[in-house]
């Protein structure tokens, strides 16, 4: 029995140091080389500026979340402070009405879009009968404008998509091409009779819009702007004898 008691004491005496030695949860350092000292979170937000040398690398995993602007935000407000510059989503909540495509379409139709510039060759309002008179426009650049709809910033972009050429003699044609200056004759018209005409150009715009920094969306419908008529006189060429 005494041997058993002594055995117990020894067992306890041996057991205690073992328990104490296992209390240290931190193993010895294995490496510091190449590792930033700002911890897991800050290193991850740096998105791999200073990756550790081995094994797992912070911030290099594929982002499972949508990036800024890719989420459903009906309206955002760009605010620059002393330390940050950020688009705050201020309009995806119940207190602000959602902007519908019809709202945008209405605004698009009311836009003051320019008429396309019509250029006629030969210039100076004079052309010949039965001669390929050249027509073209240089108004092909998309026009972007911002406005406020229902308290939210909306950007509209109008692109000249098709052109209706009214030659003033009852004939017209419609193209998606803007034409080209001489000698690239793509849109021409031959006046069959002499006379005074008022050819004009109508430009049809298609549009797209975005709310704040959200994704671009197509505006249903188109807007056509009729340009003013340009006086053009078609004359007959008369043969003349010229002496040298």
């Amino acid at each position: 029995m005494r041997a058993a008691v002594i055995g117990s004491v020894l067992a306890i005496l041996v057991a205690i140091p073992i328990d104490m030695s296992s209390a240290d949860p931190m193993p010895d350092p294995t490496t510091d080389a190449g590792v930033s000292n700002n911890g897991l979170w800050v290193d991850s937000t740096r998105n791999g500026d200073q990756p550790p040398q081995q094994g797992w690398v912070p911030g290099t995993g594929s982002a499972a979340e949508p990036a800024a602007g890719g989420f459903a935000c009906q309206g955002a407000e760009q605010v620059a402070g002393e330390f940050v510059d950020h688009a705050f989503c201020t309009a995806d909540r119940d207190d602000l009405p959602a902007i519908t495509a019809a709202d945008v379409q209405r605004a698009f139709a009311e836009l003051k879009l320019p008429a396309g510039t019509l250029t006629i060759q030969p210039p100076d309002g004079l052309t010949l009968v039965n001669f390929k008179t050249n027509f073209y426009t240089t108004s092909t650049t998309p026009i972007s404008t911002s406005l406020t709809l229902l308290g939210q910033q909306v950007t509209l972009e109008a692109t000249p998509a098709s052109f209706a050429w009214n030659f003033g003699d009852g004939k017209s044609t419609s193209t998606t091409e803007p034409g080209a200056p001489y000698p690239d004759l793509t849109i021409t018209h031959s006046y069959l009779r002499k006379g005074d005409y008022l050819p004009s150009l109508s430009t049809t715009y298609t549009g797209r819009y975005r709310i704040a920094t959200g994704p671009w969306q197509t505006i249903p419908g188109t807007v056509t702007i009729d340009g003013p008529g340009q006086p053009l006189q078609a004359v007959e060429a008369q043969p003349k004898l010229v002496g040298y």
Partner: protein
Amino acid sequence: MRTHRTAGGPPALGLLAATLALLLSAAACTGDDPDPRDPSSTWSPTGTMDLPSPTATEPAEPTEPVLPDAAKQASEDGARAFITYYWDLINYAQVTGDVKALKAASGPSCEGCLDGIQGIRDLYKDGGHAEGGDYAVSFEKVNRLKGSSSLLAFEALLTVANTEQLLVSGDGSEQRSAAGSARMAVATQWTDDSWQMEVMDPQ
């Protein structure tokens, strides 16, 4: 002779028993059973010896921070309390891999937040984990951001000091980083009756 030696034993046995009592009390506190081979050991532990509490020597289990009432106020103090709470969530998520609350407190356009959350997910998804690395936050400056009347947002420049950290990846490799500090620009916005982190940029 054998009888005589036995008769002379009690004083020695008494000393031994006292030692045993002391040690057994320690053993009892740590949950060890008395030696089952000694049926005569009927001594009951009644000592008052104080041993270090097990919780004092072992790392406490991390508990998820609770949003303090102060962080529920639509004010600068509320924003400050929320930012502090957010870093508590970071500390919790780093050592547990549980990013649910952190994600809920992060705005969908907070890219720095998403990068940080992804970093934690990447570490834990392969069986890795982190130890230490707690951040302590101090505010250098807080400004209200000027925007439309519907915008309530504050930006802050922080100094975050972190303790030493051990990262153990899924394959068992370890990386230790020393204590350090970093400056972070953050912004928080009052959205749907609560604060959300909108910006998390290292400076």
